């Protein structure tokens, strides 16, 4: 890996060079919550000053740019019995993601495993994913972050460059030739021992700050053993079945497909909408049989998919420990508490 160091003013110039020809998505302050704390969101930005690289976390992940909530899979021209199907992968122009945290880049890497994997890769996702330039930024954990427990507090691949704030400068990891070439437009220098020490100091201080933890030891087995545990019913009774957790999750990709006819009956559309396994009709089949009619079985299933099924298929969990679901849950259900209760421990 190649490391460079750059002054903070240089990053502004870098942004301006990038924004001259590319759309840039970055973290901005989009409002203030009830407690007076800023709300952050990933938005398209054209001014570096509007970005808040010191953001804590965003309410919503960046997935709407590569897994839109609603997306047309195909459109049809219909004439009587005859029709013609047109498929558009909705490939936008290249997008720069400026300032993703390690958890969100890890989330992309996990999505890649399913959506770009060897069986039926999904071109709608690939078209956008292959057209991204990702600049990561180091962060400090919030009280609800448990990314370290999920092994997602650092990221090893899946980005172009990664920035870490070391005071008046940024420490930069460069992963792609694209990033290396583009960095030629600003002043950077090789890191000195003092820079390395600052970087390591940042990392060790960060590691001391984690307040939330999840014990994943033997979790796949424990989830199987405790499949009938009464705690699922308790969490199910609290759960509202609203699906907010999936909406704010950077790795939830489940969806439903709907077809609609244009009002003039000459055209039709096939639309994919992200869905949630906590919503009541997720597993309902024709004729009305529902394989998971209770909220508790649906909630359990979500944990099962994230922490067991995905581990079985890819040897890693589908959770990055960003804590967004717990923060947004209207019933206050958090992953560390649910897992601890399944393990028979106090959170």
């Amino acid at each position: 890996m190649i490391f460079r160091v750059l002054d903070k003013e240089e990053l502004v110039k870098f942004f301006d060079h990038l924004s001259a020809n590319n759309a840039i998505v970055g973290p901005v302050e989009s409002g203030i919550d009830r407690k007076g704390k800023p709300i952050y969101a990933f938005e398209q930005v054209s001014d570096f000053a509007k970005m808040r690289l010191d953001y804590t976390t965003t309410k919503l992940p960046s997935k709407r740019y590569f897994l839109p909530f609603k997306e047309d899979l195909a459109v049809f021209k219909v004439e009587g019995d005859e029709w013609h199907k047109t498929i558009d992968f909705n490939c936008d122009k290249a997008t720069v993601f400026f300032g993703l945290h390690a958890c969100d880049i890890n989330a992309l890497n996990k999505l890649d495993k399913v959506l770009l994997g060897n069986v039926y890769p999904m071109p709608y996702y690939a078209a956008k994913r292959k057209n991204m330039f990702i600049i990561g930024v180091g962060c400090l954990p919030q009280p609800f972050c448990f990314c370290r427990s999920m092994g997602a507090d650092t990221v090893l691949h899946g980005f172009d460059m990664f920035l870490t704030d070391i005071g008046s400068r940024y420490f930069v990891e460069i992963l792609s030739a694209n990033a290396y070439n583009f960095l030629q437009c600003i002043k950077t220098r090789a890191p000195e021992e003092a820079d390395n020490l600052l970087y390591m100091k940042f990392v060790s201080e960060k590691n001391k700050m984690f307040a939330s933890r999840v014990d994943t030891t033997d979790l796949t087995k424990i989830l199987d053993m405790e499949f009938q545990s009464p705690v699922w019913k308790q969490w199910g009774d609290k759960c509202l079945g609203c699906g907010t957790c999936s909406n704010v999750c950077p790795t939830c990709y489940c969806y439903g497909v709907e077809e609609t006819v244009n009002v003039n009956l000459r055209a039709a559309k096939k639309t994919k909408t992200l869905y949630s396994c906590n919503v009541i009709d997720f597993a309902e089949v024709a004729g009305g049989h529902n394989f998971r009619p209770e909220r508790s079985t649906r909630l359990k299933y979500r944990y099962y998919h994230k922490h067991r099924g995905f581990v079985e298929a890819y040897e890693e969990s589908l959770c990055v420990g960003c804590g967004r679901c717990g923060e947004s849950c209207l019933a206050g259900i958090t992953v560390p508490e649910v897992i601890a209760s399944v393990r028979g421990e106090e959170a």
Partner: protein
Amino acid sequence: MYEYTYKSEITRVSRLTDKENLYRIRIIDQNDRKRFSFKPGQFVMLEVPGIGEAPFSISSSPSSHEDVELCIRKAGNLTNYLSRASRGMRVGIRGPFGTSFPMENMQGQNILLIAGGLGLAPLRSPIAYVQENRTHFGHVDIIYGAKTPSHLLFTYQYDMWRRDEIGLSIIVEKADSLWKGQVGLITNALEAVIAGKDAAYIHNTSAIVCGPPVVFKFICNILSEIGVPMQKMFVSLERRMHCGMGKCCRCNVGSTYTCLSGPVFDYWTVMNLKEAI
């Protein structure tokens, strides 16, 4: 592959019961039609633009490259629309998807084909395979249960099956005035069929089971008790599906997807998938 639809034409609609029709469907492009091949137990996604798309097991013989047949019950938007379809209607099919019944591995064995209700639809394909390769198999028995005689599917084929030396035991839960056959549950019919079989028969038997969710456990328990090994029992599961390609997650069972690892599972695998049956 993704979203690639074979444009197809409905070439025949045969009424089977009040609720079920058999649709014969032909891929319009000749090269595509030649290339399209499937194995018994696999399914396709059938699409009517603007109305919807859903998974259906293929009910016809895998050796026929002209048409595929789908047995479809009126149950929702798409299937109600289809029930008003006539010859010539254009539909789309994607696939074939999923796993199949391992017919080659069953060669030389006795086969029990057990279907409850609409579960006969996915079994018609392995039945056709057996008919075409009858000498490759030992005793073959179909055990089929339905609610009433008017719910029975494919009645016009029963004589042909019997002529091909396939045992056929039919049972209905509720008889009507004309019914002369067995009355009871499908498990009763199964027990009656296996009552006359010896240990040598059981030792060399594979089973294929499909039905509504409630029947799997009862049937497979009986088969286990008489000594059919779990890895020689095959079930075909039904789940909601929106993609057929392991992406939408709607058909998830345990730690896997019905569309990729299924719909045909052996009983051992199913027992290890939480909430599969």
